[in-house]
């Protein structure tokens, strides 16, 4: 049945996505919630108590997420009396502890259910405090990509300042620390630099307030992850910045992206293949699509992209599917034409099809953690040739 999970582990929630994002900024988030938030993942032997080191046995490596999340710590009685005073106290605590450059307000499931009025708190922040603030409309029930996407959009409404366009400049949108590493961001920047582009700001990666402010000067936005799409659409509406979509993985894909960035126009999506898929990629939509294009160049006729996480319909090909139950995953894996599946090994469900593991930091408790690795430009082609 839908929404019943028996074998597939839970992923990071939308609020945890926001938490991972905050780590890379000078801002904080205040969440109306009954409990607080500990760091999402510590490196082995790193900071904190052993129980804070996520993953079986606490032996996982990788790090993202901090305590730049302040909880209002609501209780049963607040359901009746309202939570705004506790949210306000949390805002003040956050300002005292972190001295943030900006602040995002959001709601956890219980607060979302009782209809917490963050509008009142936002008005008070604007009247009494000198910190840019915005509301991120989350409820703790969606996946991390949705949370990061909505938070990036909210940041886009308060951080960039209107600037004259600087030709040859680009913003990277969606390069967050769950699906990307700082090395990947650096390699992408180098690839862009080698092709005459200068990166103005990195939305999701480590970034300064100064660069966020200057982001509106970019000639084009490159959306490398589905979580950057809302922000790209907002910046197109607000600042007139066109956007190009795709993870810069694989030589052919990178050439296409450079061409689109130069022209400022997106090429139409290729047609879907006929019949059952011969390859299945389960993961973040844009990374999976880049891998699909690599497989198609290697003779695969019908490659399908599926995801348990947020997908954008505008960039789905026929047959692509947003999975909402284990039954749907099982039916995809049962397809007789399948020759290979790419995805988190926790999705296997006993499938005997050839399986190529993909990074899985969005998995809240993976059996085996796999951090993202560089696929920029030709790196994906070399990886694909190795695993196929």
């Amino acid at each position, binding site marked *: 049945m839908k929404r*019943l999970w028996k074998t597939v582990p839970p992923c990071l929630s939308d609020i945890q996505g926001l938490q991972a994002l905050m780590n890379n900024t000078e801002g904080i988030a205040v969440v109306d919630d009954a409990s607080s938030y500990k760091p999402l993942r510590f490196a082995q032997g790193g900071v904190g108590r052993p129980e804070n080191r996520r993953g*079986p046995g606490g032996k996982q490596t990788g790090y993202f997420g901090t305590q730049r999340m*302040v909880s209002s710590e609501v209780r049963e009685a607040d*359901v009746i009396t309202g939570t705004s005073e506790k949210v306000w106290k949390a805002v003040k605590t956050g300002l005292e*502890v972190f001295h943030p450059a900006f602040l995002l307000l959001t709601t*956890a499931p219980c607060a979302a259910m009782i209809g917490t009025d963050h509008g009142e708190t936002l008005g008070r922040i604007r009247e009494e405090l000198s910190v840019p603030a915005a509301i991120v409309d989350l409820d703790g029930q969606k996946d991390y990509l949705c949370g990061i996407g909505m938070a990036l959009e909210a940041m886009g409404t308060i951080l960039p300042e209107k600037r004259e366009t600087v030709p040859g400049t680009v913003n990277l949108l969606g390069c967050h620390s769950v699906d990307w590493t700082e090395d990947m961001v650096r390699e992408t920047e180098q690839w862009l630099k080698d092709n005459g582009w200068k990166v103005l700001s990195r939305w999701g990666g480590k970034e300064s307030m100064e660069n966020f402010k200057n982001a509106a000067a970019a000639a084009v936005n490159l959306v490398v992850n589905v979580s950057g799409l809302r922000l790209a659409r907002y910046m197109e509406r607000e600042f007139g910045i066109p956007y190009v979509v795709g993870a810069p993985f694989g030589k052919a894909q990178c050439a296409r992206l450079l061409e689109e960035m130069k022209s400022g126009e997106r090429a139409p999506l290729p047609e879907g293949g006929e019949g059952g898929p011969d390859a299945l990629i389960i993961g973040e939509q844009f990374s999976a699509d880049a891998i699909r294009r690599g497989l198609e160049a290697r003779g695969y006729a019908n490659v399908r992209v599926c995801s348990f996480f947020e997908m954008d319909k505008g960039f789905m090909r026929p047959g692509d599917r947003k999975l909402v139950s284990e039954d749907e995953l099982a039916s995809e894996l049962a397809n007789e034409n399948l020759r290979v599946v790419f995805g988190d090994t926790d999705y296997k469900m006993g499938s005997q099809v050839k399986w190529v593991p993909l990074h899985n930091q969005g998995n809240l408790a993976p059996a085996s953690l796999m951090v993202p690795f560089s696929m920029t430009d030709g790196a994906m082609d070399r990886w694909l040739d190795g695993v196929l």
Partner: protein
Amino acid sequence: MEFERTRGGRESGREEGGRRHGRHGGGGRHGGRGGKKELSSLLESKPGAMLLFVGALNCARHRADQMTGLMREGRLAMLCPTATDYATGRYLHQIVDAIVELSQEQGIKEFVVMYGCQWAVLSTDFDLLAQELKDDHGITATLDATCHLCGNAQGDEDDHRVRERM
């Protein structure tokens, strides 16, 4: 007003006939400083039982490793109703359907139900659900009433406000 001792050892007052989201289901408290127990302890005296967590994805961050470990052993499942499911009351049917499906698939006749804060906000009548499961399907269900919103599962997280004061 009647007082009952919670899992965390604190006393909570409840108006008779007022808010009530079930009885405590045995085992020890699994949140809080000191006396912290594994989730598996909820199944200690119930070798053939299974845990069902009903709540939002965000609530799964508490004890995610333990929950997933039990999931891999086939001893825990998660049901994540949507906001609409809660608002319309459909989640009550989903809980029964999920338990019946798990029972039929795995031959399990005893369940321990854990919940997130939405359950508490809605004052979910667990006794009614348990009665339906018993009468219609011969399934025994008990409730583990540990809840952050009710304040009996606190202390597990790193609270920077406490840290700052220390």
